[in-house]
């Protein structure tokens, strides 16, 4: 059980590490600490004048954020913005509480604005015959990315809920807490976990 928890909590796609290595081997980063190389400064807006003004994480979010916005703008997401945010949020909650099932969306909706794989947040498991696709977040950093994209798209939308979710994500990455989380999710159904989460959201407003 413990091994599974660790594998679940600490997992990242290859490009996360690649982006770190790109910054790590830059000669102008030789004197910096590894944590500084990974994470410092603000996520830049638009083109980056100097890569050393922020960390590898910020550079990565900048790049993925720009790609996401380009795609979303081409899809006229405005018409479905609320649904988009709700679904993105639900994806995050499902990851946080280790939901047994992925988020399922009809294929027909993908041409519009709900392709969470395209925006770099989730993996997808197609369900051809039923014409559905399942999405799942697999990495903690992807949850942070989702929060960043949500904020970038609409700074007003559910900011506190995202903050709380990220806060819980931070806690969950420490072994002791993640074990608690496992116990919680083992004992409680997802709906109840979501309910608890929502209650906490309301409480902190």
């Amino acid at each position: 059980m413990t091994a599974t928890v660790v594998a679940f909590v600490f997992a990242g796609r290859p490009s996360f590490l690649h982006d770190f290595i790109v910054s790590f081997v830059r000669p102008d980063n030789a004197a910096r600490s590894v944590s500084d190389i990974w994470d410092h400064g603000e996520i830049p807006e638009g083109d980056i004048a100097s890569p050393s003004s922020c960390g590898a994480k910020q550079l990565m979010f900048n790049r993925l954020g720009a790609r996401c916005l380009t795609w979303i703008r081409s899809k006229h997401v405005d018409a479905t913005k609320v649904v988009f945010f709700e679904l993105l949020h639900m994806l995050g909650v499902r990851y946080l509480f280790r939901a047994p099932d992925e988020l399922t969306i009809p294929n027909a909706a993908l041409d519009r604005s709900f392709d969470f794989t395209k925006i770099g947040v989730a993996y997808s498991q197609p369900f051809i015959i039923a014409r559905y696709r399942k999405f799942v977040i697999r990495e903690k950093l992807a949850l942070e990315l989702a929060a960043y994209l949500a904020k970038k798209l609409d700074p007003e939308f559910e900011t506190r809920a995202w903050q709380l979710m990220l806060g819980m994500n931070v806690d969950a990455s420490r072994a002791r807490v993640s074990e608690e989380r496992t116990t919680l999710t083992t004992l409680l159904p997802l709906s109840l976990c979501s309910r608890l989460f929502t209650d906490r959201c309301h409480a902190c407003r």
Partner: protein
Amino acid sequence: MCEAALKAANLTNKFSVTQDDVAKVFFRHDTCHSHGSKLPVCRDRGTITEEGWLWIKTAFGEERAVPKLSTKLADELRRWLAGGNSPMLLVVAPSGAGKSFAALQLGTRRYVDLLDAAPNKVSVFRRWKQAIMEEHLASSLLAPSDGASITELHKHARKGMYHTWILLHVLAAMRGQCRTPSDWLFMQRYRTVEVVAGYNAALKWLGRDDAPHYDELKKVRVPRTVLVVDEASHAQANGDRFPCRVLPRARFEPRAGAGAGAGAGAGAGAGAENPSAEETSQPGLLGALLEGVLAHRNTMIVMGTSLSFSQPMLDPTFMYDDRHSHRPPVWFVPVRFFPLLSVNECVQHVTFYAKLLGRNLDEKKLRGVCEQLQGMSP
């Protein structure tokens, strides 16, 4: 035609990647990012590229240490190819999940034809697309031999197949001149201009009087190949939809077992042969490519960050052959086969680079960073 292509591509003799080739592409001394040619550096961006490690043994033999790179997805691709269960595999995952790199890893083990549909760069795919969408091909080459009249959509379908077959023949000829899968991979990745020049020469040849007719070309079996289309969503970008008709179901034949070898090419282009066949949908360029590939029972791996590119091909009327309904012709790589790196793997990887550059790292701090790197804020 293939001779002209080989000449234009400077492939009249057998090709092997040399130490000098690899050193020039990846391990250059003239960039500070390579740290005295210790690290493989991307020629265009000047930043480190893991791709260079794939050729490190060619350049430096066994003496150079290599970081451990996950082969999880590449292994899965190989397993799928060995299984022969379906002619097309979809690999869909978010950016950075390791799709393209897995295709390259696969290409070091077996011959793979790579088509990169990403826009704004010189590529074989771009030239193939241009030939289909913008260039005239004599109607006499496409018209049915029996004089039957065909619709515009049928003409488009035949043009798409025709150009795909030409492309596959040219790639096969070039591939045949490369001694190992890695050599062919290197040629495609780093001598793209030559490969495109070879394909161009073949396209020019189509303007001659002795260019092959569609029906002739159909009978010439394309050598067995695995075609990988990367960045496939760009093959379906806005305005690029190629208006050809989908061929009917009967073209999907088993790839192995009874009947697989018999009558090679007999079913090739069956749908395009039958003007009365139902026109079901418009699959675009990707569909046209797939038609050409499947007609000779070849295999295609399609990669991208969105399933939307394959939507027309997910239409059951396009996908399934009733006679073989137990075998879906399209297969997906399940989520679990994409590599996810653990903190330990991250620590090992960073330590490798630190040692290479002579930097000392506190393992505890490094572990902390690797935990952050996987998503934990400090």
